[in-house]
C-alpha cells in the first residue's frame, strides 16, 4: 500500500463537495416545487393538484378555462397564488440576507432578527406607511423601512466591532435592545395605521402572509429581486472576508466597500419583506445553516441555497399557519420560532462542543 497520493487527496476533497452541492440544489428545488403545489392545493377549500395545474397553465396562456370552477380559480389564483409568491419572495429574501449578514459580521449567528435589523425595518416601515400611506406607489413602507433597518444594523455593528473582530456578546445584547425598541416603536406607530390588519402588534412581531395581494407583490418582489440578483456577485469576496480583514485586504478585497454594499443589499431585502409581511424570525438563521451543514460555508453555494431553503421554509410554515386552527390563522412567525428556536439552541451546543463556544 502506498496510501493516498497528495493528488488524490486534493482531488477527492474537491469532488466530494461538488457532488454534494449539485445534489443539495436539486433536492431544494424539488422541495420548493412540492411545497408550492401543496400551498396552492391545501386550505379551507382543498383543490386537487391536477386542477391547480390546469388553473396555473390557463393563466400563463396554455389550456382553456372549462376544466375548473370559478370558485376554484378565485381561491387558487387570486388568494393563494399571491400568498405563495409573497412567501417565496419573503423566504428567499430573508434566507439570502441572513447568509450575507453572517458573512459581513463574520459570525454564523448574525440573524436579521437577532441583530435588530428586522425590527428596525418594521419601525421604519410603519413610520413610512403612517406618513406617506399609499403614496409613492406603496414604496414608502419599504424605503423608510430600509432606513430603519440600516440604522439598526449600523448601531449594532459599530457597537460590536472591536479591533477588527465582532464581539458576540455585545452583538447579541445590542441586538436585543435594538430589536425591543424597533418592535415597540412599530407596534406604537402601527395603531395609527389605516389598514386594520397592520394595527396588530402581532403582525409586526410575528409576521403574516395573509396581507398578500398582487399589488403588494408588485412592490415587494422587485426590491427583494434586486438584492437576490446582486448579492451572489459578492460571493467570492465574502468567502475571502471570512478569513479576516487583514487577509481579505491583502488578497485585494476592498473590505469597507464590499461590507457596505453587501449589508445595504441584505437590509434592503429584509426591509422589503418586513414592510410587506412583518417580522418572520429565524428564517435568516435556519436557511443558511442548513446549507452550510450540507455543502460547506462557501457563499457561492450558501447564498443561492439559503434563498431556496428560506423559500421552502416560509411556504411550509405559512401552510401550517393557515391549516393548524382553521378558520383562524396562526401568525407564521410562531411556526418559524417553534422550529427555529430549538435548532438555534442545538447550534449553540454544537458550537460549544466543536470549538469552545462563542465566549
Amino acid at each position, binding site marked *: 500500500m502506498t496510501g493516498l497520493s497528495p493528488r488524490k*487527496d486534493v482531488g477527492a*476533497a474537491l469532488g466530494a463537495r461538488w457532488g454534494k452541492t449539485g445534489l443539495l440544489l436539486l433536492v431544494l428545488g424539488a422541495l420548493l416545487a412540492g411545497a408550492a403545489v401543496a400551498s396552492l392545493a391545501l386550505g379551507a377549500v382543498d383543490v386537487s393538484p391536477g386542477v391547480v395545474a390546469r388553473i396555473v397553465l390557463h393563466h400563463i396562456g396554455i389550456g382553456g378555462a372549462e376544466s375548473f370552477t370559478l370558485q376554484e380559480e378565485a381561491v387558487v389564483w387570486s388568494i393563494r397564488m399571491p400568498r405563495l409568491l409573497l412567501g417565496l419572495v419573503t423566504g428567499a429574501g430573508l434566507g439570502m440576507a441572513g447568509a450575507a449578514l453572517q458573512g459581513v459580521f463574520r459570525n454564523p449567528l448574525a440573524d436579521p432578527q437577532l441583530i435588530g435589523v428586522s425590527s428596525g425595518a418594521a419601525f421604519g416601515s410603519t413610520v413610512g406607511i403612517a406618513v406617506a400611506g399609499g403614496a409613492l406607489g406603496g414604496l414608502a413602507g419599504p424605503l423608510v423601512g430600509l432606513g430603519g433597518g440600516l440604522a439598526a444594523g449600523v448601531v449594532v455593528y459599530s457597537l460590536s466591532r472591536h479591533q477588527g473582530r465582532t464581539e458576540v456578546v455585545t452583538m447579541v445584547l445590542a441586538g436585543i435592545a435594538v430589536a425591543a425598541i424597533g418592535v415597540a416603536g412599530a407596534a406604537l406607530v402601527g395603531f395609527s395605521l389605516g389598514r386594520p390588519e397592520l394595527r396588530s402588534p402581532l403582525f409586526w412581531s410575528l409576521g403574516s402572509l395573509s396581507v398578500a395581494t398582487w399589488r403588494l407583490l408588485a412592490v415587494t418582489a422587485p426590491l427583494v429581486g434586486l438584492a437576490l440578483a446582486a448579492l451572489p456577485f459578492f460571493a467570492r469576496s465574502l468567502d475571502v472576508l471570512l478569513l479576516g480583514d487583514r487577509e481579505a485586504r491583502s488578497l485585494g478585497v476592498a473590505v469597507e466597500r464590499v461590507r457596505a454594499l453587501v449589508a445595504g443589499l441584505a437590509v434592503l431585502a429584509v426591509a422589503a419583506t418586513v414592510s410587506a409581511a412583518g417580522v418572520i424570525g429565524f428564517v435568516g438563521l435556519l436557511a443558511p445553516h442548513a446549507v452550510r451543514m450540507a455543502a460547506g460555508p462557501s457563499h457561492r453555494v450558501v447564498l443561492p441555497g439559503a434563498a431556496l431553503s428560506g423559500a421552502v421554509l416560509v411556504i411550509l410554515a405559512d401552510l401550517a399557519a393557515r391549516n393548524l386552527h382553521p378558520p383562524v390563522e396562526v401568525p407564521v412567525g410562531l411556526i418559524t420560532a417553534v422550529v427555529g428556536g430549538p435548532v438555534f439552541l442545538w447550534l449553540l451546543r454544537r458550537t460549544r462542543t*466543536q470549538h469552545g463556544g462563542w465566549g
Partner: protein
Amino acid sequence: MSGPVLAAEGLTLRVADTILVDGINLTVSPGEILGLVGPNGAGKTSLLRMLAGEVEPTSGSVTLDGVPLAAWRPRDLARRRALLPQHTLLQFAFRALDVVLLGRYPHRDSSAEEDLETARRAMEGTDTSRLAARIYPTLSGGEQTRVSFARVLAQETPLVMLDEPTTSLDLRHQELVMGLLRSLADEGAAVVAVLHDLNLAARYADRVALMSQGRLAALAATREVLRADLLTEVYQHPVVVIPHPHLDCPLILPGGDR
C-alpha cells in the same frame, strides 16, 4: 541583481503619543530574503504592516515597483505581494483546500483547473495535501499556519511578506517553510519575514534588519548583523555566536553567568 521591488523612506508610525516605528529606510530586492528581527515590542510587526500597505505610516513612504502603495488598486497589489499574518481565526467550516483556493482570489482571469493545480502544488510543498479535506478550524495551530502559508504560495506573487511564519511549527516544518522561502527567493521572488528565531535568520536570510525601539540598529548582510556584541546590546542579554558545526552559518546561543 536588478533594482529593489520595495523601497521605504523615512517610515514612521506614531500611535497616540508613542512612536512605534521611527524613520526607517530600507529596500527589498528580487532574489533575497530580508529577515526582520529584534526584541519584543521593537516594532517589527508595525514595520511589516506598513511595508504591506495595511497600515498608513504617520510619515514617510513605501513604493512598490516605484509606485506609492496607496496608488495601487487593491487587486493589482494582491497580485504583486502576498501577506501571511500571525493568526488566521476562522469561525466557518472551510476545508483546508478551500482556504488555499482563496489565495487565488486576485487571479480573476485564471481558470478553475489552473487554480486547482496551483493550490495542489502549494499544498504539496507545505506538506498539507493530506489535510486537504480537513476542516480548517479543527486543525492544530501548526497545521493552520502551514495551510495559511500554502494560501500565500497559491497567490503566486513576486513579493512575499510573512509575520513570524515559523512560530508554532515543529523543527521539521520550520525547516520546510524556510527552505520553501529560500527556493522562492532563488527563483527571483523578494521575501520579507519577521523572524523570532535568530538561528533561522542566520541560516536562511541574505540580509537582516535588526530593530530596537522602533529604529534600525543594523541593516546589512546576515553575518555582519548577527554579531555577539550587537545582539547582546540590543537584546540586553549576553549572546554567544559560534560557527555552526556542519553548516556554513553562525549559531546563536543565549549566554549568561556560569
